[in-house]
C-alpha cells in the first residue's frame, strides 16, 4: 500500500510519459470513446435532475434533458409529501452524520495514535485483531447488537447509530489514519519528548495538527457514508419523526406508489445534493483516500 506522504505525485499528475506516442487519430478516438461512456454514465443522473424540474406530464413525454417548462412544483409537492416534512428528516440526517464524524475522528485517531506511536504490551496482537475486523461482515454481530441496544432502550433513538462511532467501531478509518501517521517522521515525536511533552501533548500539538489531510478525508467519507446509510436506520428507527432522509425517501416510494415521479425524483435529487457538493469540494481528498487505502464502501 502506498505511503500517504507520497500520494499527490501518485495520483495528481495530469499526464503520463507514454502519452506522446499516440497518433492524433487514435487520441481523438479515445476521447470520443471516453466522452460517450461519460455521457451514458451520467445520463441517468442528469435525467433525474432535469426531470425534477419538469411538470409531471413532461417527464415521460420526452427523453430530452432540458425542461421545456421549468417548475419547482415537484419540490413543493415532495417536500411535504409525507406526514413529516423532508426538512425535518434532513435535519435528522445532518445531526446523525455530524455526530458520527465527531465520534469517528476522536476515537479512531486515538486508536491510530496508540497503534503507531505508543509502546505497550500486546500492541501487535490488538493491531492484528483490528485489521481482522476490517474483513469481518457486520452481519455476524448485527442481531446481538440489536438485542443489546433493545435492552438499553436505544431502539428508535439515534443512539445505536451514533454511540458505537465513539468507540472506533469503523476500523477502516483507524487503518486510514495509521497509514498517514506512519508517514510523520518519528523524530518530531522525539523532539517533543526532549521538549518535555507527554503522549497527550504530542498527540494534540504535534500529530493532530500535522494530520489535517487525513482527518478531512476521514470526516468527508464518514459524513457521506452515514448520510447514505440505509440499513442501520432501517433497523433502528421506527417513528417517522426520527427518520433520516434516506428512510424518508424510501417511505415516499411506498406512499406515492410511483404516481408522482416528479416529486420522487425531486426528493432523490435533494438527498444526493449534499454528497455531490462534498464531492465537488473534496474530490481530491476522496480520490487520494481511495487510492491510498484501496478501500471503499
Amino acid at each position: 500500500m502506498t505511503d500517504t506522504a507520497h500520494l499527490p505525485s501518485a495520483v495528481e499528475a495530469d499526464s503520463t510519459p507514454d502519452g506522446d506516442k499516440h497518433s492524433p487519430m487514435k487520441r481523438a478516438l479515445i476521447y470520443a470513446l471516453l466522452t460517450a461512456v461519460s455521457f451514458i454514465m451520467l445520463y441517468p443522473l442528469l435525467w433525474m435532475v432535469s426531470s425534477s424540474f419538469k411538470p409531471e406530464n413532461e417527464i415521460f413525454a420526452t427523453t430530452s434533458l432540458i425542461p421545456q417548462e421549468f417548475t419547482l412544483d415537484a419540490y413543493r409537492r415532495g417536500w411535504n409529501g409525507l406526514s413529516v416534512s423532508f426538512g425535518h428528516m434532513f435535519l435528522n440526517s445532518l445531526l446523525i452524520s455530524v455526530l458520527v464524524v465527531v465520534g469517528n475522528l476522536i476515537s479512531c485517531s486515538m486508536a491510530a495514535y496508540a497503534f503507531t506511536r505508543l509502546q505497550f504490551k500486546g500492541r501487535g496482537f490488538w493491531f492484528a485483531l483490528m485489521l481482522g475486523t476490517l474483513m469481518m461482515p457486520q452481519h455476524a454481530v448485527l442481531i446481538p447488537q440489536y438485542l443489546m441496544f433493545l435492552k438499553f432502550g436505544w431502539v428508535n433513538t439515534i443512539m445505536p447509530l451514533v454511540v458505537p462511532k465513539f468507540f472506533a467501531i469503523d476500523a477502516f478509518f483507524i487503518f486510514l489514519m495509521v497509514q498517514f501517521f506512519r508517514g510523520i517522521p518519528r523524530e518530531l515525536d522525539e523532539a517533543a519528548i526532549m521538549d518535555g511533552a507527554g503522549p497527550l501533548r504530542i498527540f494534540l500539538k504535534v500529530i493532530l495538527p500535522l494530520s489535517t489531510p487525513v482527518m478531512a478525508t476521514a470526516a468527508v467519507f464518514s459524513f457521506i457514508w452515514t448520510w447514505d446509510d440505509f440499513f442501520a436506520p432501517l433497523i433502528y428507527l421506527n417513528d417517522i419523526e426520527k427518520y433520516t432522509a434516506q428512510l424518508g425517501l424510501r417511505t415516499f416510494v411506498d406512499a406515492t406508489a410511483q404516481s408522482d415521479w416528479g416529486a420522487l425524483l425531486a426528493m432523490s435529487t435533494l438527498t444526493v445534493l449534499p454528497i455531490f457538493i462534498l464531492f465537488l469540494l473534496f474530490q481530491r481528498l476522496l480520490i487520494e483516500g481511495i487510492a491510498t487505502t484501496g478501500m471503499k464502501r
Partner: protein
Amino acid sequence: MSIADASNSKPPLSVRLRGQLGGYGFLLPWLLGFVVLTLGPAVSSFYLSLTDFGLMGSAKWIGAENYVRIASDDPRFWTAMKVTFTFVLLSVPLKLVFALAIAVALNKGLRGLTIFRAIFYLPSLIGGSVAIAVLWRQVFSGDGVLNQVLSALFGYEGPSWISNPSTSLYTLVLLAAWQFGSSMIIFLAGLRQIPTDMYEAASIDGASRRRQFIKITLPLLTPVIFFNAVILTIDAFKAFTSAFVVSDGSGGPIDSTLFYTLYLYQEAFTNFRFGYASALAWVLVVIIAFFTALSFMSAKYWVHYDD
C-alpha cells in the same frame, strides 16, 4: 552478560506502568468498542445460531438444527444463494473489466484526466444511496427512460425490466457495474506505480504496445487486480440497499432479487427469527471467509510480487 545486574535490565515498575497506561489510555475507546460491540456480539451470535429464539421468550437450545434446516429444508435459502452468487459472479468481473479498461485509457496522458476521473468516480460515491435505487427503478420500469430511448431509437417497445423476474437481477448487476469508479481509481494509482523505464526498455526491445500491455502492465498490476477482486467480492456478497429499494424489501418479483442479506434481514427483522437469522449470518461469514481464503491461496499462482 554477567556485568549487567538484574535491577538494571528493566526500568522500575512505575516507569513501565506509565508507558503501558499511555498506550492503553489511547486505545481504550477502541478496546471497549471491540469487546462490547464486536467480540461479545460475535460470540453471542454464534450461540444464538444454535437456539430457537424470537422476539418473545428466551433462547431455546436446539443445537445444529438451524444449520440442518438451512441445508436441507429451506428453498428460499437456496434461492438467495443462487441470486447472490449470480450477482457476485456477474458484477465483480464486469466491474473489474470496466475499471481496468477505463483506467488504462485514462492513463494515456490525456488532457482532462481529472475531469473524466471525477465523472467516472461519481457513481460509485453516490451509487449506494436510496435515491439512486429509486432512479434505477424508474430507468428500468415499463415506461422508464430505457424503454423511451429504445422506442425513440429503434421503435422497440421494451417490457418492464424491473418487474420481469428474468431480467430484474440484471438491472441490479448493471447498477453495480455502473459503480466501477473507485476500483478504477485504485487501478490508476497502480498504473502510475509502474516505472516508465520498463516501457522504454521494452520499446527499445521492439515490443508492440499490445505486447507491452500483456507482458508488462498486466503482470505488474496483478497485485492491484487481486486486491480489487477480493474487496469487490466481499462487497458484492454484502449488497443490500439496491435490492431492498427496487423490490420494496421483498426480494421480488418472485424472489428474483432475493439477495442473501435481504433474506437475512427479512428473517431477523420481519419474521423476528433471531436464532435462525444468526445461523444465516454465520453461513454468510463462512462463505465470505472461504472465498477470501481461496483468493489468497490462488494468489501465489497468478499474482506477481516484487519481493
